[in-house]
């Protein structure tokens, strides 16, 4: 008859096991937490890029349809731009302080506003569009009478995204 004595875990074994489990648990928890943070960061940055690129596309399309740059003058850099569009309406792109976003981000943050004057007189709410709502800085440099360089920095909680574009006007001719 084989007598097999059943041994219990020793204290050392238990301590080692508990330590290992705790260690692995901590690592796993940290990994999950890190994944979550990374995901959130990437999500914010991706959103920032997507919004910036969309706004950039919109901005470039608008400027490209222009016929004359009124402001800035050639060689000048300004934080706003005024130009005439294809039917001679006047459009201004300018910055408006965004207090809500500024409070969240703890810095001066602006909205990029596009307003079109169609000569109906007075302020027309329908003619105003917000192209971006978290922009930190914006510069328009007129390089020639028919082209402008746009330099903008867009921000959110997780970083900044800067774009630089050289946009040429497409409508250059007069009317016969």
């Amino acid at each position: 008859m084989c007598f097999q004595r059943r041994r219990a875990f020793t204290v050392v074994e238990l301590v080692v096991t508990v330590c290992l489990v705790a260690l692995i648990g901590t690592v796993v928890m940290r990994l999950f937490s890190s994944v979550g943070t990374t995901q959130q960061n990437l999500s914010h940055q991706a959103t920032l890029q997507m919004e910036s690129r969309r706004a950039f596309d919109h901005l470039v399309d608008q400027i490209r349809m222009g016929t004359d740059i009124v402001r800035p003058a050639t060689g000048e850099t300004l934080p706003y731009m005024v130009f005439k569009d294809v039917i001679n309406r006047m459009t201004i792109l300018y910055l408006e302080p965004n207090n809500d976003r500024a409070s969240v981000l703890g810095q001066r943050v602006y909205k990029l506003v596009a307003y079109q004057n169609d000569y109906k007189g007075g302020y027309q709410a329908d003619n105003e569009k917000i192209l971006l709502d978290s922009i930190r800085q914006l510069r328009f440099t007129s390089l020639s009478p028919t082209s402008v360089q746009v330099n903008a920095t867009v921000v959110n909680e997780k970083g900044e995204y800067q774009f630089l574009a050289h946009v040429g006007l497409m409508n250059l001719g007069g009317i016969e």
Partner: protein
Amino acid sequence: MSRKFATRGMVLPLSLLAILAVLGLVTTLGGLNQGLRTQIYRTNNHQLSFLIAYSAFSRVCAKVHAFSWANRPFLTEPYTETKIPLQGGHYDLLVENTAGKDYQADVYIRTHLAGISRMYFWRIRFNDDLLDVSNNIIVELYATPDVEDFPTINGPRKIAGQVEEMLAQRAANQKKSDVLAAELMKSVNTKSVIEKMGARVPEDFQQEFPVSVTEEMMEARVAVAPPDIQAPLAAEKPTAPGPSSSYIGIGYDSISGNQINELSEKLTAASEKLVEATDKAWTEIDQNGVDGIPAATEQWEIAAEAKQETYETLDSLIDESKTGIAEAPSIEAREAIEEMVAQTVVSSMNDITTAIERGYEHLVTGEGSYLEGLTTSAAVESLLNDWKAAEERTQADLDRLTEMAGDIQGYSMTSEVSQKLTDTLASAQESLEKIQDAVAEAEARLAELKELEAMAAAEQAAASADVAETEAAEEAAAVSAAAEEATATVEGEME
């Protein structure tokens, strides 16, 4: 057995957990990445489509250049290209003459990239100028219509109609936009620009946030106020018959480094003031006669001052132009200065002669009546003295104008300006002759009046002598009678 099971029990859940964690991470990041990539891809495609279309458009422009407008590929029928591969996508093209307009063409381009089609439209104007080859093709209008609007050869031209409307709308808004643009150009701060645009003026931040140096610099930046360049006067346009009162922009002459423009401006103002004051003075006389003399005198004084200023400024301008011409960096720059100065000087000389003429117009119409109305030689003599003084002044003006004409004789000037200079001197000469004729007539009238007055005096003297003789004879007769009476009385007493 149970020990084995216990070991397995630890590993399996941990392995599953790890696998799940990794899968979760990969899935999340993969999805996120894919989303971002799609967005970037679309954004890039949006720009890339435009580049494809613009490349196709440039190829059309190159063809027009290569074949000349008279031999353009779309001379008789629309020129088309279909599914031409370019930069990973392809494009369709249709170019045709703009209906009803010479030297214009409509370019329709439809791009296909990554399954998305986009449409672009250009209306171009051909500038058939061999001397301006870099500016042969001018874009009249660019638009991004719907893809469905891409025309077939015999199909409708939906966009063309819209373009006409847009061009009409553009023309209708042209003046308003020009006026607003001119206003905006004068504004140097953001707030005034936004106000003039009719947009909402933004309020400042409600809280204090740190401001970077670059931001501070940008906020403090004042927009450049460009020089106020006015449009040329109608008479100054190339199609006009010739220059009128000159317009020279305000500003420092960057070519010659002197103040020619400023002096020209001053000169124009002074000569125009001279004409205006002279005209007002004579209008006053015409309307109110003698009663208008005090008011007219004031205007004449203003005119005299303006004339003096005109002459002084003319001298300064001619001197200054000589310096500018001597220092001109090129023949073209020298000719530009000469033409500008000549035009301004001739214009002011013309103003001077206009002012002189204005007075002598009055002289011609009223000369006869003046002289006939004066019945004494003293009055005519007084008038004659005034006219002689005017003759001297006019002679001096003519001499001075002739001298100035000599000063700018060698200057480069347009044929119109040259003709105007000749006309101006002729006009001054004519005015001199008018006053000389008037002086001659006044002298004749004076002589006539003097003769008449002499005759009248002689007659009066003769008449006086007769009276005296008669009175003497009467007195002698009386004396004789008295003597005879006395003699008779003496003889009677003696008897």
